[in-house]
């Protein structure tokens, strides 16, 4: 009788062990899947952030072309950008709230390809885990010479 009871108990313990083993495998598999999907998600979030930063930068009052408050889409005024460069550097914390870790610059393409300006660069630790860069074609307007240039807005964001 005693031996039969012991065998029954052993049987229950083995069943429980196998049961928890299967659950353990299931959890490990699920965690692996979750990790993979969260890596994909964070990449997607970073890409979206780059687009958003580019969108904000191109419509920033400190940069955008305007004539008596009538704004021109996808246009950055060169004189404003030159002034904004210093203002951004002096008030980097305020702009960090808008742009986060990243780098924003403009570059002239045609007719003047020598025009190049770094507007924002914030990455104090100089460490990046992941990075995404996008380029947006924009018009650069020189309000003194009253000339338009074709250029690009470069946005790089770090996670």
């Amino acid at each position, binding site marked *: *009788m*005693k031996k039969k*009871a012991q065998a*029954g*108990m052993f049987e*229950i313990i083995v069943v*429980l062990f196998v*049961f928890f083993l299967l*659950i353990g495998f299931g959890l490990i598999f699920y965690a692996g899947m979750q990790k993979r999907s969260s890596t994909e998600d964070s990449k997607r979030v970073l890409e979206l952030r780059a687009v*958003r930063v580019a*969108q*904000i930068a191109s*419509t920033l*009052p*400190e940069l955008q072309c*305007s*004539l*008596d*408050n009538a*704004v021109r889409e996808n246009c950055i005024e060169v*004189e*404003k950008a*030159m*002034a*904004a460069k*210093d*203002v951004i550097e*002096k*008030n980097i914390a*305020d702009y960090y*709230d*808008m742009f986060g870790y990243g780098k924003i610059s403009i570059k002239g393409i045609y007719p003047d390809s020598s025009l190049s300006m770094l507007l924002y660069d914030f990455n104090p630790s100089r460490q990046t885990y992941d990075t995404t860069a996008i380029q947006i074609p924009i018009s650069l307007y020189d*309000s*003194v010479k*009253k000339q338009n240039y074709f250029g690009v807005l470069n946005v790089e964001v770090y996670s």
Partner: protein
Amino acid sequence: MNRKAMAEEQFRWIFILVAGALILGFFTSIVIKQKQAQEDAISAAELQNMEFLMANAKVATGSANEIELAQDINFDCNSIRIGRLSKQTKEPIFAPELLKGRNLVTWSLDWNMPYRATNLLFLTTDEARYVFVYDEDKYASSSSYQKFVDELYSKFPDKMNKEKVSNKESISDKNNYKTRIVLLDASIALPTFKGVSSMTIKGTDLEKGEIQFGGQSYHYIGLPALYAAIFSEDKENYECAMDKAFKKLKLASSVYSEKIEELGSIQVYECQTHYTDSNVAISTILGADVATLKNDNWATGLFGAISAMKNYNNELIKLSCPPIY
């Protein structure tokens, strides 16, 4: 069955019960955690929606947008909280402390002082009610007052729960969780139902005037600042968000100040005069903050500087000189 066998049988049942409880507890904890994770995911999605809305508000201004509200939103000027999650915000947002209802309505306006400094974002829901009360006698006798009331009301988005009543009508309880009564140079006996708050707008000018709420008077310059007061929960929230707007104005003004210096080198006398004069005006705008709105002289000075800057810019455009903004 002898006593020993009975004891073994009892032990076996106890063992089964304990193991059963363990298994049940394990799955219950998984279900609870999943439920919490799901709730957090909904909150996170809604917070992300809010983030997109705020980013869009920076880009596109003027039109009001409506989105479905899955959960109540708590707002306190510096942060937005949905469920257990919250997000810090540095943008000038004007909203009631609690946003609840079926739809969230967002609206943003350019804050031009006189150049665009930032966008003011207004948040409310279809359940929050805005009642504009006008003085019936003044409305009939003064055309400027009539224009002021009509314009202020018509520019307020139709997607919002708004109504216009005269001071001789009574305001009924429509069971809204929040009712903001905007007294347009009018006075009434305030209704006593729940969620009622009021504010008074003095004057008949959409460009400048005075607003009173929470026992404090503020000057407003421009229509967006006036609407900002209407959407704010209280004077603390209004001051906090206006402070953020003034910080943005300071940044934009710093850029324009440097630009004016740069443009000052243009060797055309007519242009130079206006650039030199505008330097004085921009220094007044640069020095403005939320305290300026509480002081009669400072507010008048700021309004004067803004008007002067507008004139200089118009003159520069007429003279074909590079404009300031």
